[in-house]
């Protein structure tokens, strides 16, 4: 019996790890229907899409696979590694998962065909990742992982102390393309998922073609045992920011009312009591110049208000502090470094019906306010511009002091925090939004990473969401609820008494 099991198990492993017979002809047909658009007819990643994608489409002729589970010095991937990339896609890139459009056999046939581009059709991997004895996640394991992560700057050298990928040194891959250490707090950008087993594979194999090395390599100075790699995998998984994940349902920024003065600094502890809402930032793809290769992908917003003022805290991860004029900042930046920046957009009137200003800087009939903060350079300090927009490029510059709108920002360990505040009411009332308790106010955001060639129309943005100044509820709902309960109870007992009483009487 045991023998049988062993044979069955080894068969299972063999079929899983090595060649599943794929039909190359069908693979080619599927490839030419579905994949050529990005990866090119010759599989070299040269296509109409190449120039506008970051990362660029994979060049299969290079025979290099980044996400694989064969040994670190083995260039050949497992078939199932390639299959998985086709079926599940590469999160954080333009590569979607195909398992909803292609059937299983088509995808295995594709695997067989893709290997031909790299001349790998005959090759079999010689080694597999050694998973040792997996260590499940626990507070102890995570603590050990953190120590190893920081020890001798093993991981933090590139990924940063808090894992936000902000300790860059201007890394390039084997083809000379710019690469960035992953922001480990954003698991939705992990190409191979944030399951500890997948993270373990990345730590063990490294990411071929990039600066991410193998920590299983016995010749490495930073080598780690299998147990240590499990601890780091558990730690990395624990870095995911639970509070700052985009939830499609959360479209309203709810501002709580505070008595007295509002926070004037970004790290005022009262911000932590305020509910955070996170939105996707998408590149500006609508108006000239369209922008295709963003670096920022989400923005988190909190808001508080008092009797007289409103204050918003904008928070987003940015891997670079872009300071024009600063030698170190310019070294890791794209050419022509610019300031980092962020903007809030609001309609100048709270819409009464459904109609809002066009979300791209308003339109001729509906003006928007834009509060545009810039981070400053070695020459000048941070600044705030107040703009009234009536469409792309239809911008009137105004003096922010006129209405008392102010902004201040702070960059720390890969994260920008910018606070903007303004009195609820302004004069004259027809040029700026008048904030009112309880009304749903459209609000949108934009952000610029000055080290990523983001200036002018080249930036990331959100669509319209809502800002709500939460009105105080009072005790009216509670009293009404109690009265309703008494009323219903009264009716029920009256009914029951009447009914049973009748019976007794008859």
């Amino acid at each position, binding site marked *: 019996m045991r023998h049988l099991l062993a044979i069955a198990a080894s068969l299972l492993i063999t079929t899983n790890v090595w060649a599943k017979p794929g039909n190359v002809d069908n693979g080619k047909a599927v490839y030419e229907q*579905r994949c050529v*658009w*990005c990866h090119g007819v010759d599989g070299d990643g040269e*296509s*109409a*899409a190449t120039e*506008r994608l970051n990362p660029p489409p994979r060049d299969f002729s290079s025979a290099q696979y980044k996400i694989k589970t064969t040994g670190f010095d083995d260039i050949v991937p497992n078939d199932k590694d390639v299959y998985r990339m086709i079926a599940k896609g590469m999160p954080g*890139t*333009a*590569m*979607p998962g*195909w398992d*909803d*459009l292609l059937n299983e056999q088509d995808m295995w046939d594709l695997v067989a065909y893709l290997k031909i581009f790299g001349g790998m059709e005959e090759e079999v991997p010689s080694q597999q990742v050694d998973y040792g004895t997996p260590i499940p996640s626990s507070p102890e394991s995570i603590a050990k992982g953190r120590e190893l992560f920081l020890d001798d700057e093993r991981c933090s050298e590139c990924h940063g102390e808090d894992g936000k990928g902000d300790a860059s040194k201007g890394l390039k891959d084997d083809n000379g393309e710019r690469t960035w250490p992953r922001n480990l707090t954003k698991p939705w950008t992990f190409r191979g998922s944030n399951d500890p087993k997948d993270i373990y594979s990345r730590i063990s194999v490294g990411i071929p073609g990039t600066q991410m090395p193998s920590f299983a390599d016995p010749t490495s100075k930073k080598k780690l045992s299998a147990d240590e790699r499990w601890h780091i995998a558990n730690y990395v998984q624990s870095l995911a920011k639970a509070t700052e994940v*985009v939830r*499609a*349902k959360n*479209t*309203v920024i709810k501002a709580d009312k505070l008595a007295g003065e509002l926070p004037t600094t970004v790290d005022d502890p009262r911000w932590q009591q305020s509910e955070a809402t996170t*939105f*996707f930032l*998408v*590149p500006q*793809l*609508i*108006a*000239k110049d*369209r922008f*295709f290769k963003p670096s920022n992908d989400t923005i988190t917003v909190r808001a508080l208000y008092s009797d007289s003022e409103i204050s918003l805290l904008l928070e987003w991860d940015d891997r670079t502090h872009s300071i024009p004029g600063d030698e170190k900042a310019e070294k890791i930046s794209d050419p022509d470094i610019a300031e980092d920046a962020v903007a809030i957009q609001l309609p100048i009137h709270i819409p009464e019906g*459904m*109609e*809002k*200003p*066009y*979300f791209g800087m308003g339109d001729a009939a509906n003006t928007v306010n834009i509060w545009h903060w810039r981070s400053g350079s070695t020459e000048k300090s941070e600044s705030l511009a107040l703009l009234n927009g009536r469409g792309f490029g239809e911008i009137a510059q105004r003096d922010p002091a006129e209405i008392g709108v102010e902004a201040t920002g702070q960059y720390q360990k890969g994260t920008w925090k910018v606070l903007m505040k303004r009195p609820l009411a302004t004069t004259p009332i027809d040029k700026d939004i008048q904030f009112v308790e*309880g009304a*749903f106010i459209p609000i949108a955001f934009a952000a610029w990473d000055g080290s990523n060639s983001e200036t002018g129309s080249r930036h990331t943005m*959100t*669509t*319209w969401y*809502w800002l709500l100044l939460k*009105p105080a*509820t009072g005790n*009216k*709902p*509670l009293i*009404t*609820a*109690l009265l*309703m*309960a*008494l009323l*219903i*109870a009264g009716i*029920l*007992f009256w*009914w029951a008494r009447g*009914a*049973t009483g009748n*019976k007794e009487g008859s």
Partner: protein
Amino acid sequence: MKMPRLLQAVLVVVGIYAGFILVFDYLLGQVIPSSLLSMYMFFVIAGVFMVYTYTEESARELVAPIKALVEDPGKKRLRNVVFIIVPLLVAGFTYQRMSPSFEAPVELRSIHPAPPATVKAYGKRFNLATLENPFRQYEKSDPDKFRALVREGGDIYIQNCQYCHGDKLDGRGPYAAGLNPTPLNFQDVGTIAQLQESFLFWRIATGGPGLPKEAAPWISSMPVWQDFLTEDEIWKVILFLYDYTGRRPRSWEHE
């Protein structure tokens, strides 16, 4: 044993409610606004009530368990429990309804608005009723040329449209999740398969700002493509959309 009619009615209502949640929130991935759901459920409950009280006898059967609960002295204990729970439920419901919900206002918009008779683009007027894809004819007359045109359309698509509409044309491109309304899914039978090519030309050439008011042009992320692409390029993209998804454009002739 026959199921009590009251239980039947309750199960039907709960089943329909669960069905709405399943279809919208899970299968379609579009969270159904609660105000819309309560409106639907109002009609569902009213309908079920009408069906179950159609004859006097059926009405009596429906309320029999309730009547029994109130009148039957043997059910005293159960009655007392129900008489405590029901007022509490009412109180909880009232409290919830009275407390401000802070839920985003529902915005209903028309997804395929009626096209205008004529459309202005590229500095001229197009009559949408007679406008045809100038390349469609090659599908029969010159298949090789047609394949090449589709190919060109695919390149234009992948360079310009996939960010939102996706590599698979399923409306789930890399940035789709950050847009509201979400990009159209061309694989769906309810989109391009229901439309004429001239309609697509209008929607592409004039983009979001070219929508009529009922379709909420102010929130559409669709660019004004006449600023970026030539007329011929738009027609080629349209060829590609139908070819890749295996759908056929709707045409006047077959109707």
